[in-house]
């Protein structure tokens, strides 16, 4: 089912959680709502689910206006960050709940319910834990049960609120791949909220980047990462070095002092060399080296005292034989320039 949110505004007291947000999610897509806390992403998800109601705006499923519908009538599957499993029920009863509460005339027979629950238990690979209570499961297992419980009612959309937020890194990785696989199998329109850009870029078909109650950009992971529309998106998706700069005759110059523009360069778009290669470069001194991981992270200080972060492959690092306090040349490869308009200070605030 497709989801449309049109002109959604929501205030909590004086705080504006969502300011005239419009979003269109085509049928069968897996979409990530990505943003820092307070960006309104969870509020938007809860409004789609019917757990929160917008002050203005409409929500449509497949073109039908469901703005006034209660959560229980919307047929959404909702997965909560902290699982929200029914603690006094077994795993089996948790998953069966949505079927058992149906009005008598549409409630499946007991045998059908049992069959359905076991099928879902197999899907989440917890068939042997049906009689356990939620407190006896690990975080990853609980979240899978929560997912199965949501899927049991055969929802038309699946909404996940920071589904992997309270899991440790390893389980998180595993579970998000599993979610991607699951989505490829059942093709249910899914929206998940996350503040983890890596998660959004890895799992989603499309990423919607939000900040301060607005949508900054939406597009494929490739689009939002490689062609960020706003400084905020650039900043939020991955690490970045900021420089003051100006544009002259189509050329970008980096400056020490405040100018009209801000130059954004990703750490892996900066190259380090021992000799100036003739082109654009500036001088820096190595301050710190972290060689753990696939990329070596180098921290250097420029002539004018700014800190730059550079990432390079291990081979390159080894061939340069860099050491702390070495004087080097830094060569920007790919930069993005935005108008300054005191945006940098604004963004820093937002990113906090």
């Amino acid at each position, binding site marked *: 089912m497709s989801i449309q949110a049109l002109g959604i505004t929501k205030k909590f007291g004086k705080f504006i959680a969502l300011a005239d947000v419009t979003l269109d999610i085509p049928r069968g897509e897996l979409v990530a709502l990505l943003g820092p806390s307070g960006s309104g992403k969870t509020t938007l998800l809860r409004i789609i689910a*019917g757990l929160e109601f917008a002050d203005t705006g409409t929500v449509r499923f497949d073109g039908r206006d469901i703005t006034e519908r209660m959560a229980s009538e919307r047929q959404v599957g909702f997965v909560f960050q902290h699982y929200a499993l029914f603690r006094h029920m077994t795993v089996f009863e948790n998953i069966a709940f949505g079927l058992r509460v149906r009005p008598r005339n549409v409630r499946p027979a007991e045998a059908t319910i049992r069959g359905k629950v076991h099928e879902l238990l197999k899907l989440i690979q917890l068939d042997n834990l049906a009689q356990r209570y939620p*407190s006896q499961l690990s975080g990853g297992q609980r979240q899978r049960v929560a997912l199965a*419980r949501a899927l049991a009612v055969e929802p038309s959309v699946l909404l996940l609120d920071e589904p992997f937020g309270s899991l440790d890194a390893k389980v998180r990785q595993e579970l998000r791949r599993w979610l991607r696989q699951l989505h490829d199998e059942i093709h249910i329109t899914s929206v998940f909220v996350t503040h983890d850009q890596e998660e959004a870029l890895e799992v989603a078909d499309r990423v919607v980047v939000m900040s301060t109650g607005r949508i900054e950009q939406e597009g494929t992971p490739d689009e939002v990462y490689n062609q960020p529309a706003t400084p905020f998106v650039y900043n939020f998706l991955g690490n970045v070095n900021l420089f003051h700069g100006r544009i002259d005759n189509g050329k970008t110059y980096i400056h020490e002092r405040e100018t009209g523009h801000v130059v954004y360069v990703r750490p892996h778009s900066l190259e380090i060399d021992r000799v100036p290669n003739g082109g654009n470069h500036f001088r820096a001194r190595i301050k710190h080296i972290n060689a753990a991981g696939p990329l070596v992270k180098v921290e250097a200080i420029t002539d004018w005292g700014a800190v730059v972060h550079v990432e390079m492959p291990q081979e390159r690092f080894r061939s340069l034989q860099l050491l702390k306090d070495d004087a080097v040349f830094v060569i920007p490869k790919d930069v993005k320039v935005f108008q300054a308009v005191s945006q940098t200070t604004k963004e820093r605030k937002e990113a906090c």
Partner: protein
Amino acid sequence: MAGTTTPNGRRTRGMGSTARATSESWIVRCVLIGITFLFLGLFLFMPLAVVFATALQKGVSAYVASFTEHDAIAAIRLTLLTAGIAVPLNLVFGVAAAWAIAKFEFVGKSLLITFIDLPFSVSPVVSGLIYVLMFGLQGLLGPWLAKHHIKVIFAVPGIVLATIFVTFPFVARELIPLFQAQGSEEEEAALTLGASGWQTFFRITLPNVKWGLLYGVILCNARAMGEFGAVSVVSGHIRGLTNTMPLHVEILYNEYEFVAAFAVASLLALLALLTLVLKSVVEWRSKRQAQENEMDWSAAIA
């Protein structure tokens, strides 16, 4: 259970390892424990023993006779009736108030919380007087009630009203922190799964606070049956009509009927002991629930 492993795999520290920084020398411990027992013995166990000893002074038949006598039966019946009305009403009120306070934001919420505690902070005599001032002949609604031949004060309705007033904080106070701690995620989950409001309440909300609720009800009941001050003011002490058990005990005692007085008192004491036992059981179970959430109630509510 020294060093046992729970089903969750958590190691629990056994009784054997008491080498904590705060533990005292054995002399200090003995003195403290001794004082505690001496104090409890003097002020609790001995009086309790005296109650039963005096009640049984003239043998079991005299003991039994004192509460099979007509006025005593009437008093017991009135006490049961009063508790039977007050406890269910306060159960409903308590759940509703706790629900409203824990789950909604509204104007006057903190005021409501304060007012729920009022019966605890005000003297029971004052609680009784409030009703005399409202429903008594010289009271606010007195003339109107008299015109319609409704008797509240010095009659059963007054006793029930005073008891409800005195006991209404128990359930609400027990539930508010529970509701607040649990948040509303489970209820939201139930709603998205298609459950109606009532289904959510009876299948999710209530089972989660079951033990806390029972605890509140037990305390509420104990107070409802044992209340003296407020009920004394509104009762009028009409034998066989408006005497509850505590009032009956007082009357008998004032008439030097010690055996009868202590016999009825022993019933109240037994009620208190039973309440303590139930309270401990419920406390133990709710603690277990909090720790492991292992109880199987799904069958009970399915």
